[in-house]
């Protein structure tokens, strides 16, 4: 069974978690063109590598960030959003 470390609840089975996609900065909707906005809505960084991702621990309702290598499946660290430096 695969495991993931939740910053609030410790190490739990992966089946308790939901993947929320890569962490991305939203462009300013007022300032961006239709084309830029479409790219933000649809396009993804699909190539493998070390990524900052949103994950959700279902039973406790906790959203957090995981830094994960999508080629090797290694998780470097997990932390609550905004607490990157503390982690």
């Amino acid at each position, binding site marked *: *069974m695969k495991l993931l470390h939740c910053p609030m609840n410790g190490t739990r089975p992966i089946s308790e978690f939901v993947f929320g996609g890569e962490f991305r900065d939203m462009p300013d909707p007022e300032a961006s063109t239709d084309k830029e906005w479409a790219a933000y809505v649809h396009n993804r960084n699909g190539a*493998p590598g070390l990524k900052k991702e949103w994950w959700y621990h279902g039973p406790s309702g906790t959203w957090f960030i995981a830094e994960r290598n999508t080629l090797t499946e290694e998780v470097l660290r997990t932390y609550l959003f905004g607490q990157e430096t503390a982690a």
Partner: protein
Amino acid sequence: MPLRLLKFAFSKNHPAPRFFRALEQPKKSYDVVIIGGGGHGLAAAYYLAKDHGITNVAVLERGYIGGGNTGRNTTIVRSNYLTPEGVNFYDASVKIYEGLSEELDLNLFYSNRGHFTLAHTESAMRTMRWRAEVNKHVGVESRVVGPDEIAKACPQLDLSCSGHAPILGALYHAPGSIARHDGVAWGYARGADRQGAEIFQNTEVTGIDVQSGKVAGVHTSRGYIATKKVLSAVAGFTPRVTKMVDLDTPIVIHPLQACVTEPMKPWLNSILVSGSLHVYVSQSSRGELVMGSSLDPYEVHSTRSSLDFVEGLTSHMLDMFPFLSNVKIVRQWAGMADMTPDFAPIMGKTPVEGFYLDAGWGTWGFKATPISGKTMAETIANDRAPEMIHSFRLSRFEDYELTGEKGAASVGH
């Protein structure tokens, strides 16, 4: 041919026939370079030669041909999609498949079985009715059937699914079929090779040379090759290749797993799919039950398979067929599915001149192998995509004109 057989019996020398030439080194340049020796890349090479007389073509494959998703899929061929564009496109593919063993002079074990998409809920029944109407409108044989007809076609099925998820009805699709996946790759490879295309295995494309917005060549593990036209047909590797030309796409990679049981006497004629139970199953010509499930739930670029998957899938199989409890699973594996947000492929031209894309085949691309090869060959030859694949163009995303096929995906994702 009895005389040939007799000669063969008396000969001491029995070389295995080669399917394509074992060429040493790629040439310095080609008219077209195809990245990826899966069914799609090989079919494109075949139709470039056959339909357009373009034979100065190289197919470069980093591993062995058919070793990607082509050789890992559960081989279900059907055209019961949700959008008229989709139904039309996949129907054209089914029609080519029906005559393909003959055309390629190779037995692809193409076997027409009939395909049931089981509905366990009212909302699933609604989607089945919708698909049936769209299919009929385009002229494809699909209809909604009740539990009686399902029981007649497959008396072994527990219609209550062990009481967990009673079956209310199904979408029945008569043309649903299965085929030998490696046969498709090898048949197209031989057909392309015979017409002059060159196939190189163990040859990886490591970079694409773009000069002032136009393709000029490819860097490979066997040196540089000059070319003005490159087709990327690399399924689960697509984001790595589009990165070489700085092209953004919506494609993300999730593993998709499958497994087979030990062989049994034939008992399951139909292809059965259950969206709610996340199962699709058919019995191969070798007697194995070939089974697949839904996507792994998060991005990974790997073909490792997991125990979680087999446990989940087999428990649902037992809901449907309790009598299989003593049957053994003999192999399991995974492929890398190149998923798009609307469950339709991405085909055609790109903003990079001379860079053609055949991708976004996710969990559904085996059935499209012939028609995608044919339409991509046409796109490359004319530098213009045919009308049939207009709805699958990359620019549909910036046009906000998605081609929603999620409701026709085999299992809930």
